[in-house]
């Protein structure tokens, strides 16, 4: 997975954000709430690289400080949701009969309940909800999908011979699940984790934007909340464009990581992706229905006749006739 171009790109972007989150205090040119009343709603300048808000706060600094909130919530929610999803999904997949059915029903109920009001209601129980609480709420509304996938996967693992072998050897149940099954689920767990992180980041920013999550927890969503509340759309682009782009970039990075995981789990996807392109370079067309013919000795200089074919239409022969008689 770490040799996959996509995951590397994703991990690098994520790494940058993580560094920003950790070292935000040192990097940020100003405090996130430092107000400069002489520079209200300034477009980007050398003093304020990304301009200022209606109170003269430095947008760049807010973005830098906001990174931490986004990442902490995203990852905490991801961890919690994954723990729930694994606990419920794997158990539901391993046990049978009514136990499995009721856990599956529970999962479905969580899929059916509208998440947003649930979040609002739970969040409203607490004064000044902490990041942990917000993450938990996002996790509670976000684990069900992963739980479902894990259940299905566990069900297919359950009857695999190596699990049967472990049972026949007399391994205790917990060990079968923890030692024999989980390692084979890691890729799926990882991808469901990354998926919930993306969902949590989008959820957090959306909730912050519509104002149901305390705006004291500075994050990119709150920047957009303030921007929208203070009429930044559409004129003060510097105020809302960077935050939105950061969210998209983080989401993109996480998606890239997930691509990598997907390709790791399913090597066919890999061959479909990068290797397919490599093959194209070699002159193959994957949609061809006839095997390429490329006589070895003749092709020494050229890259083979196959490459000369026009990639336009699929009815195209794709293979030029290298008449061998």
């Amino acid at each position: 997975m770490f040799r996959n171009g996509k995951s590397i790109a994703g991990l690098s972007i994520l790494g940058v954000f993580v560094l920003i989150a950790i070292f935000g205090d040192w990097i940020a040119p100003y405090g996130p709430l430092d107000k400069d009343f002489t520079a209200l709603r300034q477009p980007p300048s050398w003093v304020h690289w990304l301009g200022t808000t209606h109170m003269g706060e430095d947008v760049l600094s807010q973005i830098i400080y906001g990174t931490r909130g986004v990442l902490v919530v995203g990852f905490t929610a991801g961890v919690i949701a994954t723990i729930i999803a694994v606990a419920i999904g794997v158990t539901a997949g391993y046990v049978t009969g009514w136990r499995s059915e009721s856990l599956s029903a529970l999962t479905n109920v969580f899929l059916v309940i509208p998440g947003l009001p649930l979040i609002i209601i739970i969040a409203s129980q607490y004064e000044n909800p902490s990041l942990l609480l917000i993450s938990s709420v996002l996790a509670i509304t976000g684990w069900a999908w992963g739980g479902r996938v894990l259940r299905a996967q566990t069900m297919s693992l359950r009857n695999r011979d190596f699990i049967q072998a472990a049972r026949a050897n007399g391994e205790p149940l917990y060990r079968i699940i923890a030692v024999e099954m989980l390692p084979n689920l890691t890729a799926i767990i990882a991808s469901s984790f990354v998926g919930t992180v993306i969902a949590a980041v989008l959820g957090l920013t959306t909730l912050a934007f519509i104002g149901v999550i305390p705006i004291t927890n500075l994050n990119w969503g709150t920047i957009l909340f303030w921007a929208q509340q203070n009429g930044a759309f559409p004129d003060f682009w510097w105020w809302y464009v960077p935050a939105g782009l950061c969210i998209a970039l983080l989401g993109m990075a996480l998606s890239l990581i997930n691509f990598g995981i997907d390709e790791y789990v399913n090597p066919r996807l890999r061959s479909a992706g990068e290797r397919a392109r490599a093959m194209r370079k070699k002159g193959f067309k994957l949609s061809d229905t006839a095997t390429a013919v490329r006589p070895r000795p003749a092709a020494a200089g050229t890259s083979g006749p196959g490459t000369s074919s026009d990639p336009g239409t699929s009815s195209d022969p794709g293979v030029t006739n290298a008449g061998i008689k």
Partner: protein
Amino acid sequence: MTTLEFKNVSKKYRVRGSGELLALDKVSFTLTSGQTIALVGQSGSGKSTIAKILTQLERVSSGEVLLDGTPIPTWGRPLRRYRQSVRMVFQDPFASLNPAHTIRHHIERPLRLDKVVPADQVEEEVFRLLNRVRLSPEQTIDRRPHELSGGQRQRVAIARALASRPALLIADEPVSMLDVSIRLEVLNLLAELQREANLGVLYITHDLATARHFSDEIMVLHHGTVVERGKADDVILRPQHPYTRALRDASPDPEKHFAVPTTPGATS
């Protein structure tokens, strides 16, 4: 001397949509250590079901299974002790090893679980077992299953089954997924180990030829009932039951085929 006795064992499966399926119907037989019984029969005749009952992956619906005259335990520590004496080699060496773990893990687990040897000798024992199945321990121990060939994997599976020093070994079509050229090697290895350790072996197969050469007795299973049982050669060469005869006649046998000159391509 360990004896395992199947007494009027029946097994029903509940099948979604169509009620129950009688997979085994009053099957009785005895397996003693030092003896090899081949269990042959068509697909779906209930061969694997017998194996699963023996390893207690499934419970009997009626009848009993006795180990040295006492009913086998169904749970807890006694079950584990029972399982220690009855081990199984699965059909598909590609599926029966956990892709996430090394060979070491696979062989160590039963050793530790059943405390076959003191903890400090586990490593040594793993080496011994691998050597016994003719795998080079140094080269294989830290590899994962996907780095081994099918035959090597099946050897690991055999080593794992032998680790707990069982009295009885159940081999459910142990070579049908293997390449022709290595099938005999694996079977020969099994046969050798069986002799050395005085194992009782239940050899499940649909290949009559290997059944005949590998086992002392052959038991023919048809639709969940034992239709014929006897000395290996007798069953193959002088089958009594029409089903056994049909099975034998269906198996390709070039010797017979070329014994009578025929027009090429036509079947006998």
